[in-house]
């Protein structure tokens, strides 16, 4: 392991105390983000993407319990840090871009106020902070940034707001940017604009990005590494080529198969994954995907598989892979 990781999650377990008992939202999650890389997370609703992000930035809901594991960021475990220490990391070393640009900015404060407020730690004059904000807006492609700084969020379009959110997130030159479905709410032509802008900025600033999306095309185009999640587990992770060209976990294979964009010949009968995610408060004994898996063997519904490494940087959590490793 030569590469240095900016973030490394290992054996993370998070549950939610609910009326129906403990809801095991994340189980033994492993993930690493090499310095300067873009890691994509894919998975369908209920796979635990949001919980994982919240665990990283320390903003889990009140009824969440982290039972074990570690989240090592730049050499120290975030789970061991106090609320104060975490706050010092948020917005400086780790920042975030959220899904819905229409609601993620404060509606009654001007863009300028919000951009200057988040620089509260820096001992520079307000004029300097303002200048820095203008420069940042310029870099994300907001025309006429100087005067638009006085505008309020509702005066911008959705695409513009997402650019502003990116500008705010990158202003402090963080080591890690977490982007939670940043383009889902946008139209296709804007999505392309934002993704390109994000990649250019990442190149010039040299930060790492954790990019969450359910859009396989975007993941393939933007990311270096991909993490596939299902029902609160990381079922497979590897380089983007591993995942798209040599998927090992049956779920990954199915997910790729289902994407109509990957089906070259036009067909009227699209593949599906029958069944549903099991109840996370009442987990099955064996593999989490066993119910819906068409390559299930006897052991699958008895024993939960452990993670096995297939090749460098390519892991999967499946009995099949452990039995017959593919090179």
């Amino acid at each position, binding site marked *: 392991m030569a590469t240095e990781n900016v973030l490394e999650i290992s054996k993370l377990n998070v549950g939610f105390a609910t009326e129906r008992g403990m809801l095991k939202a994340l189980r033994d999650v492993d993930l690493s983000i090499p310095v300067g890389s873009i890691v994509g997370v894919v998975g369908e609703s209920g796979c635990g993407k949001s919980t994982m992000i919240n665990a990283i*930035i320390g*903003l889990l809901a009140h009824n969440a319990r982290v039972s074990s594991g570690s989240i090592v960021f730049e050499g120290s475990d975030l789970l061991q840090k106090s609320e104060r220490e*975490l*706050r*010092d*990391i*948020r*917005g*400086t070393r780790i*920042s*975030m871009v*959220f899904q*819905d640009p229409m*609601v*993620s*900015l*404060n*509606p*009654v*404060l*001007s863009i300028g106020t919000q951009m200057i*407020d*988040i620089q*509260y730690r820096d001992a520079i004059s307000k004029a300097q902070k303002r200048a820095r904000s203008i420069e940042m807006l310029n870099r994300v492609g907001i025309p006429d940034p100087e005067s638009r700084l006085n505008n*309020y969020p*509702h*005066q911008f379009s959705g695409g513009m707001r997402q650019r502003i*959110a990116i500008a*705010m997130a990158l202003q402090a030159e963080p080591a890690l940017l977490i982007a939670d479905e940043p383009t889902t709410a946008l139209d296709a032509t804007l999505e392309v604009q934002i993704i390109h802008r994000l990649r250019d900025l990442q190149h010039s600033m040299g930060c790492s990005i954790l990019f969450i999306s359910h859009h396989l095309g975007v993941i393939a185009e933007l990311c270096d590494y991909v993490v596939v999640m299902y029902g609160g587990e990381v079922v497979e992770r590897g380089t983007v080529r591993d995942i798209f060209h040599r998927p090992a976990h049956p779920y990954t294979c199915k997910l790729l198969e289902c994407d109509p964009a990957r089906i070259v010949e036009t067909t009227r009968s699209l593949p599906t994954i029958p069944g549903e995610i099991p109840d996370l408060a009442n987990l099955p004994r064996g593999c989490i995907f066993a119910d819906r898996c068409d390559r299930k063997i006897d052991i699958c519904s008895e024993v939960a598989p452990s993670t096995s490494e297939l090749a460098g940087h390519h892991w999967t959590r499946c009995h099949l892979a452990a039995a017959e490793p593919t090179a």
Partner: protein
Amino acid sequence: MWLYFLKRVLLGILIVVVAVSLLYSMIHMVPGDPVKTILGPRASPELQAQIRDKMGLNDPLPVQIVKFIGRVAQGDLGEDVFKRKSVNTIVFEQLPHTIYLVLAGIGWAMLVGIPLGCLSAIYRYSIIDRIAGILSVSCIAIPTFVVALYSVLLFAVTLKWLPAIGAGDGESLGSYISHLILPAFAVGLGWVGYLARLVRASMLEVMGEAHVRTARAFGLPERTIVFKYVLRLAILPTITLVGMGIGILLSSAVFTEIVFARPGIGRLIYDAVTSRNYPVVMGSVLVTTVLFVISTTIADLVNALVDPRLRPEK
């Protein structure tokens, strides 16, 4: 911006006009002769004729309403037919006492209620929140006149700390203020509860919104988040409620002024009702209605100043 202001003020004026017309039409809904209703059955026929003529009751109703509104717009509320005194003089003599009472009441309610609500929201579901919740709901539940009666009983009759009756000797400010304390306490108490509950509820609502998560994700200090990012939004419904509150406190003032035998517009109306002095009743109801409309209008305008989303684009 100015267009919104203009629209809102015009709406306020329109509301007053409709309200006055409704009030005026009510006289005609009474079965029988309105003059007899106003003066009572024992008034002399000459007086009746005189009043009918003076009030223009011989015109058709819409004409009467237009004439009446015209007079009111010029600031003429009519004449007290018994005392032969202008209603304006009578009402505006009493009005300041009520306004001081209402402002003192809503003032202390805001000073206590808003921080209490913030505290509840910040420490939600804690013991502080629970106690504050019980206190505020209890404050809301106890009617003003019962508060007034009990505070007379406790502070004036039993403990003899504060004066119970009147508005002071009219000479010293200190005496006026000491006479204001109990009435203001009585009218404001329920509003402590209202404001605390509303501030808590709207703060909790705003705290659940996505942009607060953004602020947290940028590591802003909790103080900045609560007082700048949350309160600025959560205060908007409170401003509206305070605007309404001033009008509702005018109602409560009636009870308070009677229990404490204070001068004021509430007492004036009460006395006018018991002596069936209709012009004075009409004049005072009208003035209080206008006050109500003015306070809600101001609240809306303040809201527009605080909330950029309400400002129309250029």
